[in-house]
């Protein structure tokens, strides 16, 4: 599979803040790639560098087969971008803004544009200044989704949308995936990423700390197992790779590292298993593993 986006050791500083600190990101053709991290981790900065709006201080970035800074205009014909904070012109209607962006990009599907307005329940005849944040977001989304481009760069595209619109959005992204197009989806709505993404990259303080398919990531992390056994399972505590064993209402609950699951299940079998439930780690657990410490000591990092 060809790489649509590759960055190597990308660094971008704003004054004394290192917004990107050696970013290594790769997105392959045809995938929906989840780009995860809280505000200030560097997601938007990375996307702006990929768009040639910001110039990286060092490192290498490739978009398709071009340089995002030098070949910006050529590359932009093949992509559509939805910013996290959409600003519209106060005296242009939403419909005019949708058409403007789509026409500037080139190929654009008129019927699909009207159908999308319908599906997203957007009135395109209103002036930009009258739209709420959610509706401004819809304008940028509809314009991007109606354009026939190979890559969508979406920076928290559903931040202002309600759950119904979130469902419409997910349908649209699935259609795009089926058509073989590529999506970089920056988000902190974990359910959205879990539902849509083939692979995810987790960014922290300008670096990718984890990258892979959800299955791979889960494998690398602990599984939570809850068992009810005839005999006491206290002895499991001594097994390698087993953590946090607790007894609760006659059930045992513990976490086990991905590559020790086999040993643990063998050790469980002789104890007389009455019931067993195993949970893979949720995306939230994966993310909290990297960010857990920040809840104690909030980071002063203010990069965007």
């Amino acid at each position, binding site marked *: 599979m060809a790489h649509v986006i590759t960055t190597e050791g990308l660094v971008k500083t704003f004054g004394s803040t290192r917004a990107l600190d050696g970013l290594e990101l790769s997105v392959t053709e045809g995938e929906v790639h989840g780009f995860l991290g809280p505000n200030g981790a560097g997601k938007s900065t990375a996307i702006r560098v990929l768009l040639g709006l910001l110039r990286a201080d060092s490192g290498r970035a490739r978009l398709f087969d071009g340089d995002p800074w030098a070949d910006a205009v*050529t590359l932009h014909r093949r992509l559509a971008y939805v910013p996290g904070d959409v600003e519209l012109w106060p005296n242009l209607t939403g419909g005019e803004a949708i058409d403007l962006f789509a026409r500037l990009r080139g190929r654009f599907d008129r019927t699909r544009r009207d159908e999308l307005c319908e599906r997203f329940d957007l009135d395109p005849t*209103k002036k930009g200044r009258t739209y709420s944040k959610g509706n401004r977001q819809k304008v940028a989304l509809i314009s991007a989704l109606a354009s026939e481009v190979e890559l969508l760069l979406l920076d928290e595209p559903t931040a202002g949308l309600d759950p119904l619109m979130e469902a419409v959005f997910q349908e649209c992204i699935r259609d795009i995936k089926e058509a073989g197009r590529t999506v970089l989806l920056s988000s902190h709505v974990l359910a959205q990423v879990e539902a849509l993404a083939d692979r995810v990259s987790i960014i922290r303080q300008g670096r990718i700390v984890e990258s892979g398919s959800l299955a791979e990531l889960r494998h690398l992390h602990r599984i939570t197992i809850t068992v009810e056994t005839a005999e006491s399972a206290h002895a499991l505590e001594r097994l390698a790779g087993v953590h946090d064993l607790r007894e609760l209402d006659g059930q045992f609950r513990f976490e086990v590292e991905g590559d020790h699951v086999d040993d643990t299940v063998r050790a469980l079998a002789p104890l007389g298993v009455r019931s067993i439930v195993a949970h893979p780690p949720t995306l939230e657990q994966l993310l909290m593993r990297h960010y857990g410490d920040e809840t104690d000591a909030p980071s002063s990092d203010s990069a965007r």
Partner: protein
Amino acid sequence: MPADASPSSTTSRSDRLAGVGTLVRFLLRRDRIKLPAWTGGLGLFVVYLAVALPSVAATEEELRSATQLFADPVGRLLIGPGYGFDEPSFERFVANGYGLYFAIIAALMNILLVVRHTRLEEQTGRAELIRANVVGRAAPLTATLILAVITNLVAAVVVGVAMVGIAGFATAGSLVFAVGLAATGIAFAGVATVTAQLSQYPRAAAGMAGAVLGAAFLVRAGGDMAAEGGTALSWLSPLAWAQQTAPFVLDRWWPLALSIVFAVSTIALGHLLAARRDLGASLVATRPGAHEASARLGTPVGLAVRLQRGNMIGWGAALAIGGLAFGAYTDALTDAFLDLPGAFTELFGADDLVDGYLAYMATFMAFLGGAYAVTAVQSLRGEETSGRAEPLLAAPVGRITWLATNLVVTTVGVVSIMAVTGLATGFGAVLVTGDTHHIPDLALAHLNQVPAVWVVLGIAVLLLGALPRAVAGAWIIVAYGLVVGTFGPMLDLPEAVLELSPFAHPAEVPTETVRALPLLTLSAIAVGAAAIGLLAFRRRDLETT
């Protein structure tokens, strides 16, 4: 609009005004820079006139002939009924020659103040935060009007003290003038109170109040032109009442009763309208716009035209109307030619005073054309920092394409505005003199200044590319040109100081004939600066806030 139709039946008076005291203190805190700036500015205007006038017209004879310029019908059109101009003094000249412009500044100050604290707050949603607390329904508007009254009283004190204490004018007349100024200001606070209820948008609300101000100017212009001391038509204008007190001449107070009645009725009407509508709603319904973009909008140049159109038409119309008035002034100037103070002949610097005057007007309009160019580049900077340029540059639109198309539209705008203004000035001159050659002469004179305006534009673009935070620095060129070009000849400034201004280089048409070399040099400087700006813009990060 379902708000409560009969507020007084459901809410007691004290509830409707709950929190006014706190809000007034809050508003004073928010306006802690603006209030002293506006009122201090009015005071400085008095000081400036008190210092400048004696230096322009040193003797009573010179003052008398300068006054003559303003006493004829076209002069009265621009300044008011012209009380006391048969026996001019400096205090009469300030109060009755410039009083109208003090009143216009006060009116603008009040319109902006009221709209800023009412409709803008509602549009941004900050009013919602305030109103969700223990704050009565009428409290924010009432607090705003209390702030307006305080501001106008401060302005009256500052102006009064400047007139009596610094300029040494008579106390009685100064008091009438200062109180008249405050009364006019409050009257326009009343106008804005009404217009703020009419539209959902602060700009439209301020625009409607501005239109009332414009209409008030035109009505009294018509009335004052017809006869000295004004006619019945003058009395229909809220701008006229303070002028009719005739400070330092009649010193009568009763016309201000009209201002007070007008202010009280408009404020009452505004409160009534406000009580009958929902928060954020308006009495003028919003119309749906275009469902889809017209074919022209889908290109960078189409968008640039669409976004710059309003600013361009606004400046063009204002300059053309100004030009028409200045042109129509030509005849009065010819009559007064022989007795004018020497300072004027130096300013217009010619043996033929009419041609000198018209040449100076072309330069003066070029200063304003430069101001237009700077605002156009500043709004491009606004497009960048607001984040509206970002999705465009994320589409296949290059940096240079985006900036260059906008630059081309502004460049064409400069030419069109100067041409239209030249034609209007010429037309005004033809109206009073009957010499049709003024039209082509003045069109040429204004176009002759275009390359100087381009230099301002080019340097503004250079700043946008290389030092984007300093774009406003381009105003320095305009201000420098205005000050040096207007006062330089009188002050005998060295040649090098005068020639630093781009506006000093084109030939003084129609006094002189067009010289190509300075025009080509200025154009080359403009192109060079713009080119460096474009390249620098291509190389830097896009800044969003």
